Protein backbone atom coordinates (compact mmCIF):
# COMPACT_ATOMS: atom_id res chain seq x y z
CA UNK A 1 0.00 0.00 0.00
CA UNK A 2 1.28 3.46 -0.72
CA UNK A 3 0.07 6.92 0.19
CA UNK A 4 -0.30 9.28 -2.78
CA UNK A 5 -0.17 13.06 -2.88
CA UNK A 6 -3.95 13.38 -2.93
CA UNK A 7 -4.20 11.38 0.30
CA UNK A 8 -1.52 13.52 1.95
CA UNK A 9 -3.48 16.65 1.05
CA UNK A 10 -6.69 15.07 2.34
CA UNK A 11 -5.09 14.16 5.68
CA UNK A 12 -3.65 17.65 6.04
CA UNK A 13 -7.13 19.03 5.51
CA UNK A 14 -8.53 16.70 8.21
CA UNK A 15 -5.69 17.68 10.56
CA UNK A 16 -6.23 21.40 9.84
CA UNK A 17 -2.61 21.90 8.87
CA UNK A 18 -2.04 23.74 5.61
CA UNK A 19 0.91 22.42 3.59
CA UNK A 20 2.36 23.52 0.27
CA UNK A 21 3.19 21.10 -2.57
CA UNK A 22 6.86 20.88 -1.71
CA UNK A 23 6.12 19.92 1.91
CA UNK A 24 3.38 17.56 0.80
CA UNK A 25 5.82 15.70 -1.44
CA UNK A 26 8.38 15.44 1.35
CA UNK A 27 5.68 14.20 3.74
CA UNK A 28 4.51 11.65 1.19
CA UNK A 29 7.97 10.09 1.21
CA UNK A 30 8.24 10.14 5.01
CA UNK A 31 4.78 8.70 5.54
CA UNK A 32 5.37 5.89 3.06
CA UNK A 33 8.61 4.94 4.82
CA UNK A 34 6.88 4.97 8.18
CA UNK A 35 3.90 2.95 6.98
CA UNK A 36 6.15 0.42 5.31
CA UNK A 37 7.66 -0.09 8.75
CA UNK A 38 4.21 -0.24 10.38
CA UNK A 39 2.93 -2.86 7.89
CA UNK A 40 5.00 -5.42 9.83
CA UNK A 41 1.99 -5.81 12.11
CA UNK A 42 0.14 -7.60 9.32
CA UNK A 43 2.40 -10.63 9.88
CA UNK A 44 0.40 -11.29 13.05
CA UNK A 45 -2.98 -12.95 13.19
CA UNK A 46 -5.01 -11.03 15.77
CA UNK A 47 -8.48 -12.39 14.96
CA UNK A 48 -9.10 -13.68 18.47
CA UNK A 49 -7.29 -10.98 20.40
CA UNK A 50 -9.17 -8.40 22.41
CA UNK A 51 -8.01 -4.83 21.81
CA UNK A 52 -6.22 -3.22 24.72
CA UNK A 53 -7.86 0.14 25.24
CA UNK A 54 -6.56 0.98 28.68
CA UNK A 55 -3.52 -0.25 30.52
CA UNK A 56 -4.95 0.62 33.91
CA UNK A 57 -7.42 -2.19 34.49
CA UNK A 58 -9.83 -0.12 36.49
CA UNK A 59 -13.11 1.49 35.62
CA UNK A 60 -13.11 5.25 35.74
CA UNK A 61 -13.96 6.74 39.09
CA UNK A 62 -17.07 8.79 39.65
CA UNK A 63 -16.88 12.04 41.52
CA UNK A 64 -19.43 14.56 42.65
CA UNK A 65 -20.14 17.28 40.16
CA UNK A 66 -19.01 20.20 42.27
CA UNK A 67 -17.73 23.62 41.35
CA UNK A 68 -14.27 23.92 42.82
CA UNK A 69 -12.98 27.05 41.15
CA UNK A 70 -14.83 30.34 40.99
CA UNK A 71 -14.05 33.71 39.48
CA UNK A 72 -11.50 32.29 37.09
CA UNK A 73 -12.60 34.27 34.03
CA UNK A 74 -9.51 36.45 34.17
CA UNK A 75 -7.23 33.42 34.48
CA UNK A 76 -8.91 31.72 31.54
CA UNK A 77 -8.61 34.77 29.31
CA UNK A 78 -5.06 35.54 30.39
CA UNK A 79 -3.37 33.59 27.60
CA UNK A 80 -5.87 34.51 24.91
CA UNK A 81 -4.14 35.54 21.65
CA UNK A 82 -6.83 38.15 21.04
CA UNK A 83 -9.42 39.22 23.59
CA UNK A 84 -12.13 41.72 23.96
CA UNK A 85 -13.06 42.14 27.63
CA UNK A 86 -14.85 38.94 28.58
CA UNK A 87 -14.59 37.03 25.31
CA UNK A 88 -12.21 35.18 23.06
CA UNK A 89 -12.10 36.84 19.67
CA UNK A 90 -12.10 34.82 16.44
CA UNK A 91 -12.68 35.72 12.79
CA UNK A 92 -16.34 36.19 11.87
CA UNK A 93 -18.08 32.79 11.70
CA UNK A 94 -21.72 33.67 10.92
CA UNK A 95 -22.45 36.09 8.10
Amino acid sequence: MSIDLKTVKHISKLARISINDEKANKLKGDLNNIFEFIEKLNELNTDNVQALTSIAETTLRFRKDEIKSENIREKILKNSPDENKDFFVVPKVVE
Partner: protein
Amino acid sequence: MSDITSQSLFELTSNIKEKKLSSEEITKAFINRAEKSRKLNVYVTDNFEKAIDQSKKFDSNPNLDFKLPGIPIAVKDLFCTNGVRTTAGSKILNNFVPTYESTVTQNLWSQGAILLGKLNCDEFAMGSSNETSFFGNVQNPVGENLVPGGSSGGSSAAVAANLTPVTIGTDTGGSIRQPASFTGTVGLKPTYGSCSRYGIVAFASSLDQAGPMTKNVRDCSMLLEVISSFDQKDSTSIDYKRNYYSKELSKDIKGKKIGIPKEYRVDNMPDEIEQLWKNGISYAKDCGAEIIDISLPHTNYALPTYYIVAPAEASSNLARYDGVKYGFRSPGQNLIEMYEKTRSEGFGDEVKRRIMIGTYVLSSGYYDAYYLKAQKVRQLIKKDFDDAFSKVDAILTPSTPSSAFKIGEKTNDPVSMYLNDIFTVPINLAGLPGISIPAGKDKNNYPLGLQVIGKPFDEQNILNISYALEDKINFKNDISDWWLSE
Protein backbone atom coordinates in the same frame (compact mmCIF):
# COMPACT_ATOMS: atom_id res chain seq x y z
CA MET B 1 33.23 19.23 51.23
CA SER B 2 33.13 18.64 47.48
CA ASP B 3 31.99 21.35 45.08
CA ILE B 4 28.31 22.13 45.70
CA THR B 5 27.00 21.44 42.21
CA SER B 6 28.63 18.03 42.00
CA GLN B 7 26.90 16.81 45.15
CA SER B 8 24.07 14.32 45.01
CA LEU B 9 20.58 15.16 46.22
CA PHE B 10 21.26 12.99 49.27
CA GLU B 11 24.40 14.96 50.13
CA LEU B 12 22.74 18.34 49.58
CA THR B 13 19.73 17.53 51.76
CA SER B 14 22.05 16.17 54.49
CA ASN B 15 24.17 19.33 54.32
CA ILE B 16 21.09 21.52 54.63
CA LYS B 17 19.71 19.46 57.49
CA GLU B 18 23.07 19.64 59.30
CA LYS B 19 23.22 23.40 58.57
CA LYS B 20 26.49 23.03 56.69
CA LEU B 21 25.00 24.68 53.63
CA SER B 22 22.17 27.15 53.14
CA SER B 23 19.56 26.97 50.43
CA GLU B 24 20.84 30.32 49.14
CA GLU B 25 24.42 29.03 48.79
CA ILE B 26 23.22 25.98 46.91
CA THR B 27 20.82 27.90 44.68
CA LYS B 28 23.45 30.51 43.79
CA ALA B 29 26.02 27.82 43.03
CA PHE B 30 23.73 26.18 40.48
CA ILE B 31 22.76 29.53 38.95
CA ASN B 32 26.38 30.60 38.70
CA ARG B 33 27.26 27.40 36.88
CA ALA B 34 24.23 27.70 34.60
CA GLU B 35 25.31 31.17 33.55
CA LYS B 36 28.64 29.75 32.39
CA SER B 37 26.91 26.87 30.63
CA ARG B 38 24.74 28.68 28.07
CA LYS B 39 26.47 26.74 25.31
CA LEU B 40 24.65 23.56 26.34
CA ASN B 41 21.28 25.31 25.73
CA VAL B 42 19.53 23.38 28.50
CA TYR B 43 17.29 26.22 29.65
CA VAL B 44 14.25 27.45 27.73
CA THR B 45 13.21 29.75 30.60
CA ASP B 46 15.11 30.43 33.79
CA ASN B 47 13.59 31.37 37.12
CA PHE B 48 16.86 32.47 38.73
CA GLU B 49 15.81 35.72 40.40
CA LYS B 50 12.72 34.25 41.97
CA ALA B 51 14.69 31.15 42.98
CA ILE B 52 17.19 33.25 44.94
CA ASP B 53 14.35 35.10 46.69
CA GLN B 54 12.72 31.80 47.57
CA SER B 55 15.98 30.34 48.86
CA LYS B 56 16.46 33.34 51.17
CA LYS B 57 12.89 32.93 52.34
CA PHE B 58 13.55 29.25 53.05
CA ASP B 59 16.73 30.03 55.01
CA SER B 60 14.98 32.64 57.16
CA ASN B 61 12.70 29.96 58.55
CA PRO B 62 13.92 26.57 57.38
CA ASN B 63 11.61 23.58 57.66
CA LEU B 64 14.04 20.68 57.89
CA ASP B 65 11.31 18.06 57.95
CA PHE B 66 10.79 18.54 54.24
CA LYS B 67 12.11 15.85 51.92
CA LEU B 68 13.60 18.45 49.55
CA PRO B 69 14.44 21.27 52.01
CA GLY B 70 15.36 24.39 50.02
CA ILE B 71 16.70 22.29 47.14
CA PRO B 72 16.69 24.11 43.77
CA ILE B 73 15.37 21.95 40.93
CA ALA B 74 14.95 22.63 37.20
CA VAL B 75 12.21 20.65 35.44
CA LYS B 76 11.38 19.64 31.88
CA ASP B 77 9.42 22.34 30.08
CA LEU B 78 6.47 20.00 29.68
CA PHE B 79 5.22 20.55 33.24
CA CYS B 80 2.85 23.48 33.67
CA THR B 81 4.23 25.86 36.28
CA ASN B 82 1.97 28.56 37.66
CA GLY B 83 3.19 31.96 36.47
CA VAL B 84 6.26 30.58 34.69
CA ARG B 85 6.20 30.18 30.90
CA THR B 86 5.66 26.59 29.72
CA THR B 87 6.43 25.94 26.05
CA ALA B 88 6.68 22.14 25.55
CA GLY B 89 9.54 23.10 23.21
CA SER B 90 7.03 24.47 20.70
CA LYS B 91 6.48 27.77 18.93
CA ILE B 92 2.76 27.25 19.40
CA LEU B 93 3.17 27.61 23.20
CA ASN B 94 5.97 30.16 23.01
CA ASN B 95 4.04 32.71 25.07
CA PHE B 96 1.98 30.38 27.24
CA VAL B 97 2.07 31.19 30.97
CA PRO B 98 -0.01 28.64 32.91
CA THR B 99 -2.33 29.83 35.65
CA TYR B 100 -2.13 26.47 37.42
CA GLU B 101 0.51 24.00 38.57
CA SER B 102 1.04 20.38 37.53
CA THR B 103 0.56 17.91 40.38
CA VAL B 104 4.05 16.41 40.23
CA THR B 105 5.76 19.82 40.33
CA GLN B 106 3.40 20.87 43.13
CA ASN B 107 4.58 17.76 44.99
CA LEU B 108 8.17 19.06 44.69
CA TRP B 109 7.34 22.54 46.01
CA SER B 110 5.20 21.09 48.82
CA GLN B 111 8.33 19.29 50.04
CA GLY B 112 10.44 22.46 50.05
CA ALA B 113 12.00 22.42 46.57
CA ILE B 114 12.54 25.64 44.60
CA LEU B 115 12.03 26.02 40.83
CA LEU B 116 15.31 26.87 39.06
CA GLY B 117 13.84 26.97 35.57
CA LYS B 118 12.38 25.07 32.64
CA LEU B 119 14.49 22.66 30.63
CA ASN B 120 14.61 22.19 26.89
CA CYS B 121 12.95 19.15 25.31
CA ASP B 122 11.81 17.85 21.96
CA GLU B 123 8.68 19.61 20.73
CA PHE B 124 5.71 18.11 22.59
CA ALA B 125 8.17 15.40 23.74
CA MET B 126 8.26 13.98 20.21
CA GLY B 127 11.84 13.04 19.48
CA SER B 128 14.83 11.03 20.64
CA SER B 129 17.58 13.63 20.35
CA ASN B 130 16.17 16.99 21.50
CA GLU B 131 16.62 18.24 17.93
CA THR B 132 12.92 18.93 17.29
CA SER B 133 12.76 21.70 19.92
CA PHE B 134 11.73 25.16 18.67
CA PHE B 135 14.43 26.46 21.02
CA GLY B 136 17.28 24.63 19.35
CA ASN B 137 19.20 21.48 20.10
CA VAL B 138 20.90 20.71 23.40
CA GLN B 139 24.57 19.73 23.67
CA ASN B 140 25.38 16.53 25.55
CA PRO B 141 27.98 17.40 28.24
CA VAL B 142 29.61 14.03 27.54
CA GLY B 143 31.11 15.35 24.27
CA GLU B 144 30.82 18.25 21.85
CA ASN B 145 28.14 18.05 19.12
CA LEU B 146 26.58 14.94 20.60
CA VAL B 147 22.85 14.71 21.20
CA PRO B 148 21.75 14.31 24.85
CA GLY B 149 18.95 11.94 23.85
CA GLY B 150 15.31 12.87 23.97
CA SER B 151 12.78 13.93 24.51
CA SER B 152 13.97 14.89 28.02
CA GLY B 153 17.33 16.04 26.57
CA GLY B 154 17.62 19.32 28.46
CA SER B 155 16.89 17.38 31.64
CA SER B 156 19.49 14.65 31.05
CA ALA B 157 22.13 17.21 30.03
CA ALA B 158 21.36 19.40 33.05
CA VAL B 159 21.81 16.52 35.51
CA ALA B 160 24.99 15.24 33.83
CA ALA B 161 26.48 18.77 33.68
CA ASN B 162 25.67 19.51 37.36
CA LEU B 163 23.20 22.27 36.49
CA THR B 164 20.46 20.86 38.70
CA PRO B 165 20.84 18.29 41.51
CA VAL B 166 18.00 16.19 40.08
CA THR B 167 15.16 16.76 37.64
CA ILE B 168 11.91 15.30 36.43
CA GLY B 169 11.22 14.30 32.86
CA THR B 170 8.41 12.53 31.07
CA ASP B 171 8.56 9.21 29.25
CA THR B 172 6.11 8.16 26.52
CA GLY B 173 8.32 5.70 24.64
CA GLY B 174 11.71 6.10 26.32
CA SER B 175 12.02 9.85 26.82
CA ILE B 176 13.48 9.51 30.32
CA ARG B 177 15.48 6.29 29.98
CA GLN B 178 17.12 6.89 26.59
CA PRO B 179 18.50 10.37 27.47
CA ALA B 180 19.63 9.01 30.85
CA SER B 181 21.51 6.27 29.01
CA PHE B 182 23.11 8.81 26.62
CA THR B 183 24.39 11.02 29.45
CA GLY B 184 25.50 8.53 32.10
CA THR B 185 22.64 9.36 34.46
CA VAL B 186 19.79 7.47 36.10
CA GLY B 187 16.21 7.76 34.81
CA LEU B 188 13.07 5.96 35.94
CA LYS B 189 9.71 5.65 34.21
CA PRO B 190 7.15 4.66 36.86
CA THR B 191 4.18 2.34 36.42
CA TYR B 192 1.38 3.96 34.44
CA GLY B 193 -0.92 5.59 36.99
CA SER B 194 1.77 6.20 39.65
CA CYS B 195 2.53 9.84 38.93
CA SER B 196 -0.28 12.20 38.08
CA ARG B 197 -0.49 13.47 34.52
CA TYR B 198 -2.45 16.55 35.63
CA GLY B 199 -0.79 19.69 34.26
CA ILE B 200 1.65 17.86 31.99
CA VAL B 201 1.35 18.93 28.36
CA ALA B 202 -0.23 15.80 26.86
CA PHE B 203 1.44 13.77 24.12
CA ALA B 204 -0.01 10.23 24.20
CA SER B 205 -2.24 9.89 27.23
CA SER B 206 -2.22 6.08 27.55
CA LEU B 207 1.60 6.05 27.60
CA ASP B 208 2.80 9.32 29.23
CA GLN B 209 4.39 9.13 32.70
CA ALA B 210 6.53 11.58 34.64
CA GLY B 211 9.60 10.28 36.43
CA PRO B 212 12.87 11.17 38.19
CA MET B 213 16.22 11.78 36.46
CA THR B 214 19.18 11.80 38.82
CA LYS B 215 22.89 11.21 39.34
CA ASN B 216 22.42 7.94 41.20
CA VAL B 217 19.88 5.35 42.32
CA ARG B 218 19.47 6.64 45.87
CA ASP B 219 18.55 10.12 44.61
CA CYS B 220 16.13 8.47 42.22
CA SER B 221 14.37 6.70 45.10
CA MET B 222 14.20 9.97 47.07
CA LEU B 223 12.65 11.89 44.19
CA LEU B 224 10.19 9.15 43.22
CA GLU B 225 8.96 9.12 46.81
CA VAL B 226 8.04 12.81 46.44
CA ILE B 227 6.45 12.86 42.99
CA SER B 228 4.45 9.62 43.08
CA SER B 229 0.97 10.26 44.46
CA PHE B 230 -2.70 9.51 43.94
CA ASP B 231 -4.46 12.45 42.34
CA GLN B 232 -8.20 13.00 41.87
CA LYS B 233 -7.40 15.39 39.03
CA ASP B 234 -6.03 12.58 36.82
CA SER B 235 -8.73 10.02 36.01
CA THR B 236 -6.09 7.32 35.36
CA SER B 237 -4.21 7.97 38.61
CA ILE B 238 -4.19 4.81 40.71
CA ASP B 239 -4.90 4.78 44.42
CA TYR B 240 -2.46 2.35 46.03
CA LYS B 241 -0.08 2.41 48.96
CA ARG B 242 3.23 3.83 47.80
CA ASN B 243 6.49 2.77 49.42
CA TYR B 244 9.01 4.91 51.25
CA TYR B 245 11.32 4.11 48.38
CA SER B 246 14.42 5.74 49.87
CA LYS B 247 13.91 4.19 53.31
CA GLU B 248 13.32 0.72 51.89
CA LEU B 249 16.21 0.94 49.45
CA SER B 250 18.41 -2.14 49.81
CA LYS B 251 21.26 -3.82 47.96
CA ASP B 252 20.09 -7.20 49.12
CA ILE B 253 18.75 -8.87 45.99
CA LYS B 254 19.69 -12.41 46.93
CA GLY B 255 17.36 -14.95 45.38
CA LYS B 256 15.68 -12.45 43.06
CA LYS B 257 14.83 -13.96 39.71
CA ILE B 258 16.01 -11.80 36.83
CA GLY B 259 14.87 -12.56 33.29
CA ILE B 260 17.01 -12.11 30.19
CA PRO B 261 14.83 -11.80 27.05
CA LYS B 262 16.51 -13.29 24.00
CA GLU B 263 14.56 -11.00 21.62
CA TYR B 264 16.54 -7.98 22.84
CA ARG B 265 19.63 -9.35 21.08
CA VAL B 266 18.99 -7.33 17.89
CA ASP B 267 20.85 -7.28 14.57
CA ASN B 268 23.74 -4.85 14.28
CA MET B 269 23.87 -4.27 18.03
CA PRO B 270 27.40 -3.10 18.86
CA ASP B 271 29.58 -5.71 20.62
CA GLU B 272 30.10 -3.25 23.45
CA ILE B 273 26.41 -3.35 24.30
CA GLU B 274 26.35 -7.15 24.18
CA GLN B 275 29.35 -7.09 26.54
CA LEU B 276 27.71 -4.51 28.81
CA TRP B 277 24.68 -6.74 29.11
CA LYS B 278 26.84 -9.79 29.91
CA ASN B 279 28.63 -7.79 32.60
CA GLY B 280 25.29 -6.74 34.09
CA ILE B 281 24.20 -10.39 34.16
CA SER B 282 27.36 -11.48 35.93
CA TYR B 283 27.09 -8.65 38.48
CA ALA B 284 23.50 -9.67 39.19
CA LYS B 285 24.73 -13.24 39.74
CA ASP B 286 27.48 -11.96 42.07
CA CYS B 287 24.75 -10.29 44.12
CA GLY B 288 23.00 -13.62 44.51
CA ALA B 289 20.29 -13.12 41.91
CA GLU B 290 19.12 -16.04 39.82
CA ILE B 291 19.34 -15.50 36.05
CA ILE B 292 16.58 -17.00 33.93
CA ASP B 293 16.31 -16.96 30.13
CA ILE B 294 12.92 -15.73 29.02
CA SER B 295 11.12 -14.90 25.80
CA LEU B 296 9.11 -11.80 24.90
CA PRO B 297 8.05 -13.02 21.45
CA HIS B 298 6.31 -9.85 20.24
CA THR B 299 9.19 -7.47 20.98
CA ASN B 300 9.74 -6.73 17.27
CA TYR B 301 6.18 -5.52 16.91
CA ALA B 302 6.39 -2.97 19.70
CA LEU B 303 7.79 -0.07 17.68
CA PRO B 304 5.30 -0.37 14.79
CA THR B 305 2.51 -0.60 17.39
CA TYR B 306 3.85 2.46 19.18
CA TYR B 307 4.00 4.43 15.93
CA ILE B 308 0.28 3.91 15.50
CA VAL B 309 -0.93 4.31 19.08
CA ALA B 310 1.21 7.32 20.07
CA PRO B 311 0.54 9.47 16.98
CA ALA B 312 -3.17 8.59 17.10
CA GLU B 313 -3.41 9.84 20.68
CA ALA B 314 -1.20 12.82 19.85
CA SER B 315 -3.31 13.90 16.88
CA SER B 316 -6.31 13.91 19.17
CA ASN B 317 -4.54 15.65 22.10
CA LEU B 318 -2.99 18.30 19.87
CA ALA B 319 -6.31 19.19 18.26
CA ARG B 320 -6.66 21.76 21.06
CA TYR B 321 -3.93 23.97 19.57
CA ASP B 322 -6.10 26.02 17.28
CA GLY B 323 -5.04 29.57 18.08
CA VAL B 324 -8.32 30.41 19.78
CA LYS B 325 -7.90 30.37 23.55
CA TYR B 326 -4.15 30.37 24.15
CA GLY B 327 -0.86 29.99 22.38
CA PHE B 328 0.34 31.24 19.02
CA ARG B 329 -2.20 32.47 16.45
CA SER B 330 -1.68 33.22 12.79
CA PRO B 331 -4.49 35.41 11.47
CA GLY B 332 -6.74 34.18 8.64
CA GLN B 333 -9.61 35.45 6.52
CA ASN B 334 -11.94 32.99 8.20
CA LEU B 335 -11.91 30.55 11.10
CA ILE B 336 -10.73 27.50 9.10
CA GLU B 337 -7.91 29.45 7.49
CA MET B 338 -6.86 30.72 10.92
CA TYR B 339 -6.75 27.13 12.26
CA GLU B 340 -4.78 25.85 9.29
CA LYS B 341 -2.24 28.69 9.27
CA THR B 342 -1.83 28.65 13.06
CA ARG B 343 -1.12 24.92 13.10
CA SER B 344 1.06 25.03 10.00
CA GLU B 345 3.26 27.82 11.35
CA GLY B 346 3.04 26.86 15.04
CA PHE B 347 4.07 23.19 14.84
CA GLY B 348 7.46 21.89 13.73
CA ASP B 349 8.00 19.18 11.11
CA GLU B 350 8.16 16.15 13.43
CA VAL B 351 4.99 17.14 15.27
CA LYS B 352 3.19 17.68 11.97
CA ARG B 353 4.42 14.31 10.73
CA ARG B 354 3.02 12.58 13.80
CA ILE B 355 -0.29 14.44 13.68
CA MET B 356 -0.58 13.35 10.05
CA ILE B 357 0.16 9.69 10.90
CA GLY B 358 -2.34 9.83 13.75
CA THR B 359 -5.03 11.50 11.69
CA TYR B 360 -4.56 8.93 8.94
CA VAL B 361 -4.75 5.84 11.18
CA LEU B 362 -7.88 7.18 12.86
CA SER B 363 -9.57 8.28 9.63
CA SER B 364 -12.62 6.58 8.21
CA GLY B 365 -11.78 3.31 6.47
CA TYR B 366 -8.35 2.92 8.10
CA TYR B 367 -9.28 2.73 11.79
CA ASP B 368 -9.66 -1.07 11.87
CA ALA B 369 -6.62 -1.78 9.73
CA TYR B 370 -4.29 0.36 11.81
CA TYR B 371 -5.54 1.63 15.13
CA LEU B 372 -7.59 -1.40 16.16
CA LYS B 373 -4.85 -3.73 14.90
CA ALA B 374 -2.29 -1.87 17.00
CA GLN B 375 -4.45 -2.10 20.10
CA LYS B 376 -4.70 -5.85 19.60
CA VAL B 377 -0.96 -6.23 19.18
CA ARG B 378 -0.51 -4.07 22.27
CA GLN B 379 -2.52 -6.72 24.14
CA LEU B 380 -0.11 -9.42 22.89
CA ILE B 381 2.89 -7.36 24.00
CA LYS B 382 1.38 -6.89 27.45
CA LYS B 383 0.66 -10.63 27.62
CA ASP B 384 4.33 -11.39 26.85
CA PHE B 385 5.27 -9.46 29.97
CA ASP B 386 2.49 -11.01 32.09
CA ASP B 387 3.78 -14.46 31.12
CA ALA B 388 7.39 -13.50 31.82
CA PHE B 389 6.53 -12.07 35.22
CA SER B 390 4.96 -15.34 36.26
CA LYS B 391 8.53 -16.72 36.18
CA VAL B 392 10.74 -13.76 37.13
CA ASP B 393 10.79 -10.74 39.46
CA ALA B 394 12.44 -8.34 37.03
CA ILE B 395 13.92 -8.19 33.53
CA LEU B 396 17.38 -6.91 32.57
CA THR B 397 18.10 -5.47 29.11
CA PRO B 398 20.26 -2.80 27.49
CA SER B 399 18.58 0.65 27.56
CA THR B 400 19.39 1.63 23.99
CA PRO B 401 20.81 -0.06 20.87
CA SER B 402 23.62 2.55 20.62
CA SER B 403 25.39 5.30 22.52
CA ALA B 404 24.77 9.03 21.88
CA PHE B 405 25.09 10.02 18.22
CA LYS B 406 26.17 13.23 16.53
CA ILE B 407 23.82 16.19 16.20
CA GLY B 408 22.23 16.05 12.74
CA GLU B 409 23.18 12.42 12.12
CA LYS B 410 19.63 11.02 12.09
CA THR B 411 17.39 14.04 11.49
CA ASN B 412 16.64 13.19 7.85
CA ASP B 413 15.48 9.64 8.48
CA PRO B 414 12.51 9.43 10.87
CA VAL B 415 12.52 5.61 10.99
CA SER B 416 16.20 5.35 12.00
CA MET B 417 15.48 7.94 14.71
CA TYR B 418 12.51 5.89 15.93
CA LEU B 419 14.71 2.76 16.25
CA ASN B 420 16.47 4.43 19.20
CA ASP B 421 13.53 3.49 21.36
CA ILE B 422 13.40 -0.19 20.44
CA PHE B 423 14.20 -1.38 24.00
CA THR B 424 12.16 1.21 25.88
CA VAL B 425 8.88 1.41 23.94
CA PRO B 426 7.53 -2.06 24.92
CA ILE B 427 7.61 -1.03 28.59
CA ASN B 428 5.34 1.97 27.96
CA LEU B 429 2.95 -0.13 25.89
CA ALA B 430 2.65 -2.56 28.81
CA GLY B 431 2.45 0.24 31.42
CA LEU B 432 5.38 -1.17 33.42
CA PRO B 433 8.06 0.56 35.49
CA GLY B 434 11.55 0.70 33.98
CA ILE B 435 14.81 2.29 35.04
CA SER B 436 18.01 3.01 33.12
CA ILE B 437 21.28 3.10 35.01
CA PRO B 438 24.73 3.94 33.63
CA ALA B 439 26.60 0.67 33.16
CA GLY B 440 29.71 1.35 31.10
CA LYS B 441 31.15 3.15 28.10
CA ASP B 442 31.76 2.46 24.44
CA LYS B 443 35.03 2.85 22.53
CA ASN B 444 34.46 6.63 22.23
CA ASN B 445 34.06 6.86 25.99
CA TYR B 446 30.33 7.62 25.64
CA PRO B 447 28.06 6.21 28.36
CA LEU B 448 25.81 3.20 27.90
CA GLY B 449 22.90 2.16 30.08
CA LEU B 450 21.21 -0.99 31.32
CA GLN B 451 17.47 -1.15 31.84
CA VAL B 452 15.71 -2.98 34.67
CA ILE B 453 12.01 -3.61 34.06
CA GLY B 454 9.59 -4.49 36.85
CA LYS B 455 6.09 -5.71 37.54
CA PRO B 456 3.40 -3.03 37.86
CA PHE B 457 3.86 -1.00 41.09
CA ASP B 458 7.10 -2.84 41.87
CA GLU B 459 9.34 0.24 41.65
CA GLN B 460 11.00 -0.72 44.93
CA ASN B 461 12.27 -3.95 43.44
CA ILE B 462 13.81 -2.37 40.33
CA LEU B 463 15.33 0.38 42.46
CA ASN B 464 16.89 -2.23 44.74
CA ILE B 465 18.27 -4.27 41.83
CA SER B 466 19.65 -1.08 40.29
CA TYR B 467 21.15 -0.05 43.63
CA ALA B 468 22.95 -3.38 43.90
CA LEU B 469 24.16 -3.26 40.28
CA GLU B 470 25.26 0.38 40.58
CA ASP B 471 27.51 -0.60 43.45
CA LYS B 472 29.17 -3.35 41.41
CA ILE B 473 29.42 -1.32 38.19
CA ASN B 474 30.96 1.68 39.93
CA PHE B 475 30.41 3.95 36.90
CA LYS B 476 32.30 7.25 36.72
CA ASN B 477 31.08 9.93 34.34
CA ASP B 478 34.31 11.85 33.72
CA ILE B 479 32.99 15.01 32.08
CA SER B 480 35.57 17.65 31.21
CA ASP B 481 33.46 20.84 31.50
CA TRP B 482 34.49 21.66 27.90
CA TRP B 483 31.54 24.01 27.43
CA LEU B 484 32.16 26.36 30.37
CA SER B 485 32.62 30.05 29.57
CA GLU B 486 33.70 32.82 31.92
